[in-house]
């Protein structure tokens, strides 16, 4: 997969080293014997032959020979274990604490399943694995250097945790105190390596034996992939990796068979109660957030919504529901919520935030948006995995029915219960409601089309224009939007046609900066195997946290079209500083300090080209964008990455 590099002529190189080495040695010998300086050029021809005594000393076998090589090590067995799990890729920035494992993966493991991917930052390695899981529906691995590598990776692990994404993280330690070389190995060693990320990972272990490693590895995979899915961490101790593995020891080792866990389903009685409420409701509302775990989730939710003729709001932590479906009313969320008598929230990430509004002024005031007496029902697995320290669990909100279980796994029983509760009379009433909703959807789409026309010809470009220029070029392809949260100011979700599970990858979870590009690269890697076109709308501030992922994309030939939403600032932060300046009555004229990325503007096309990625732009005239995207797409269709830089409006 990596590009071939020019090879050094190894034979010539070794010959040069051997001759040079011999010349130095013999010259020294001659000088010692004769007391005269050895003249360059005569050393080889005139060197004395070794005496019989010297030959005997060199050929004598010492009583104890230090064993310097071995055939098999603990790290080889670790590779055997990982291979049983079907992990296709492992992303890593090199680190000496896992040197044996790396060598085993690429040589003993033949660099296949998993294939080793070179990253330029540990944060990118984990974000790549995070993005990959969104498309592939299974974990990828990231290996990070002991201590310092894990520190780099920690924010990306936090994102994966907040997003409940399964990622396998390996880290390592240099071994026991008497095995560590002085200096850096001590700085990179740690007693409890995973403690750094324990608050935001689902499980971790540092195996003390190879058998322990095998069992913990299989357990880690099962734990990571059972809802609520989340990252897990395995610490591979250095000595365990590097120690020779003798045949008699190897025979005793076993690798447990991976049998995936079933996913937790909600209580059937509570599901039946929910079905009755939904069928009887005059204005039910379904709100899906981190709902879809597999592609099967979408048709299940369509079935439920159509049975009830109920509007669905997709909060898009996952690709939950087709955006053009007549029952998708995501753009009318608050209006529908204020009228709802029953709200069903599927895997809510922030239930309080969904049904309350909070104003960001000096005194933060909040108000409930739901009408009095509205019933709130949740189906979700959030409470099955909650830790104390980091507060990603959000503010507490009361529910009328709270069903603990994976929403997707619970959906078939809810559908069945709704079907049983529906009478013919009720069905005809619901059909009338569905008709009204379909008309409202039509009006809403027309309104959004009109909104997109504002500033259509503006420069810098509007995000509506950027989104629709991109859509025009990709809508005939088997496309996948792999940018965090979609990108493009939400315009793709308004006017494109999302109806497949891979059409977007949701958000980062924790909103930690630097997720966007490497997550896109990971998702694009999964799409590459499936022959899909990956496109990503990248924001400049987030992009520059981890731009090295472009090199990874070029090196491993991962095709993806990147369109830069280059507004030359951390605009959300500009607004925060503006808010504070206004609050303090000091004027906003310095709000740009520390928040803008201009003077000089970054040339993303040039940056891309420097890393082997096709780069175009910056585009400032809207008329130039379509042709630039078309040109870049030709590159992507050849199997290579490309980037188009676009100067955009702030939001």
């Amino acid at each position, binding site marked *: 997969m990596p590009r071939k590099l020019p090879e050094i002529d190894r034979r010539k190189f070794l010959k040069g080293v051997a001759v040079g080495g011999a010349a130095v040695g013999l010259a020294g010998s001659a000088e010692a014997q004769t007391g005269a300086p050895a003249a360059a050029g005569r050393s080889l021809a005139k060197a004395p032959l070794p005496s019989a005594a010297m030959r005997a000393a060199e050929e004598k076998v010492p009583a104890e020979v230090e064993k310097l090589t071995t055939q098999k090590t603990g790290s080889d067995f670790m590779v055997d274990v990982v291979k049983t799990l079907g992990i296709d890729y492992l992303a890593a920035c090199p680190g000496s604490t896992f040197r044996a494992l790396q060598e085993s993966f690429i040589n003993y493991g033949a660099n296949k399943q998993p294939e080793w991917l070179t990253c330029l930052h540990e944060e990118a390695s984990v974000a790549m694995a995070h993005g990959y899981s969104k498309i592939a529906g299974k974990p990828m691995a990231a290996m990070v250097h002991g201590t310092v590598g894990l520190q780099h990776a920690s924010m990306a692990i936090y994102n994966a945790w907040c997003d409940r994404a399964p990622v396998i993280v390996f880290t390592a330690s240099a071994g026991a105190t008497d095995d560590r070389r002085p200096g850096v190995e001590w700085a990179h060693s740690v007693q409890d390596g995973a403690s750094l990320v324990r608050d935001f990972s689902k499980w971790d272990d540092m195996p003390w034996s190879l058998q322990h490693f095998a069992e913990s590895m299989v357990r880690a995979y099962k734990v990571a992939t059972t809802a609520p899915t989340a990252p897990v961490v395995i610490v591979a101790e250095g000595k365990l990796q590097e120690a020779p593995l003798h045949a008699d020891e190897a025979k005793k080792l076993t690798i447990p068979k991976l049998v995936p866990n079933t996913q937790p389903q909600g209580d059937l009685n509570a599901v039946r109660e929910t079905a009755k409420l939904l069928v009887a409701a005059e204005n039910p509302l379904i709100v899906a957030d981190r709902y879809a775990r597999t592609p099967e989730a979408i048709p299940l939710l369509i079935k439920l919504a159509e049975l009830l003729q109920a509007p669905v709001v997709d909060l898009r932590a996952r690709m939950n529901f087709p955006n053009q479906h007549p029952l998708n009313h995501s753009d009318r969320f608050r209006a529908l919520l204020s009228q709802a008598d029953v709200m069903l929230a599927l895997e809510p990430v922030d239930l309080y935030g*969904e049904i309350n509004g909070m104003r960001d002024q000096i005194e933060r005031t909040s108000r409930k948006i739901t009408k009095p007496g509205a019933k709130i029902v949740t189906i979700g697995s959030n409470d099955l995995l909650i830790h104390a320290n980091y507060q990603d669990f959000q503010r507490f909100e009361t529910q009328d029915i709270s069903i603990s279980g994976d929403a997707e796994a619970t959906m078939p029983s809810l559908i069945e219960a709704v079907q049983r509760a529906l009478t013919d009379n009720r069905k005809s009433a619901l059909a009338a409601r569905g008709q009204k909703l379909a008309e409202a959807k039509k009006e809403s789409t027309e309104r959004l089309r009109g909104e997109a026309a*504002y500033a259509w010809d503006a420069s810098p470009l509007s995000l509506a224009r950027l989104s629709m220029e991109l859509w025009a070029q990709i809508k005939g392809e088997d496309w996948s939007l792999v940018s965090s949260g979609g990108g493009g100011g*939400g315009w793709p979700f308004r006017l494109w046609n999302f109806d497949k599970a891979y059409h977007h990858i949701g958000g980062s979870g924790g909103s930690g900066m630097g997720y966007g590009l490497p997550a896109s690269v990971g998702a694009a890697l999964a799409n590459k195997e499936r022959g899909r076109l990956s496109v990503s709308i990248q924001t400049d501030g987030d992009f520059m946290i981890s731009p090295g992922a472009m090199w990874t994309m070029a090196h491993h030939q991962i095709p993806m079209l990147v369109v830069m939403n280059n507004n030359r600032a951390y605009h959300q932060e500009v607004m925060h500083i503006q808010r504070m300046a206004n609050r303090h009555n000091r004027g906003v004229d310095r709000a740009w300090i520390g928040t803008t990325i201009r003077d000089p503007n970054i040339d993303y096309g040039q940056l891309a080209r420097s890393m082997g990625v096709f780069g175009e732009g910056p585009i400032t005239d809207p008329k130039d964008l379509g042709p630039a995207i078309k040109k870049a797409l030709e590159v992507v269709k050849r199997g290579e990455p490309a980037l188009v830089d676009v100067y955009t409006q702030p939001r």
Partner: protein
Amino acid sequence: MTGVKLLLTAGVALLWAASASAQQQQQAPRGSADSGRKLYESFGCYQCHNRAAQGAGATGPRLAPGPLPFQAFIQQVRHPRYEMPPYEAAIVTDQQVADIYAFLQTIPKPPDPKTIPLLN
């Protein structure tokens, strides 16, 4: 979530804008559109409402064409509803608000979306 909340804000503002009468528009003090264009930039209005005042679903409603009646406009600037930060007279004078308002009144209507092939 934030985006949806603010979209609602945008929707409310649009309704408000639609109800503006010509008479109310005429009550606006005289302002300089040229000065207003510069002030719109320097006071950072564009950060949330974009450079053509077209708004952004997630951050701020559309301001033009057809801005709010001036009295409602200046009320929103001084004592904003929802998320907008307040701009007091010590920071933006009434005349400067009038200039910005004059600039917003110069912003033309967008093209009919039916005439834009990419929107059809």
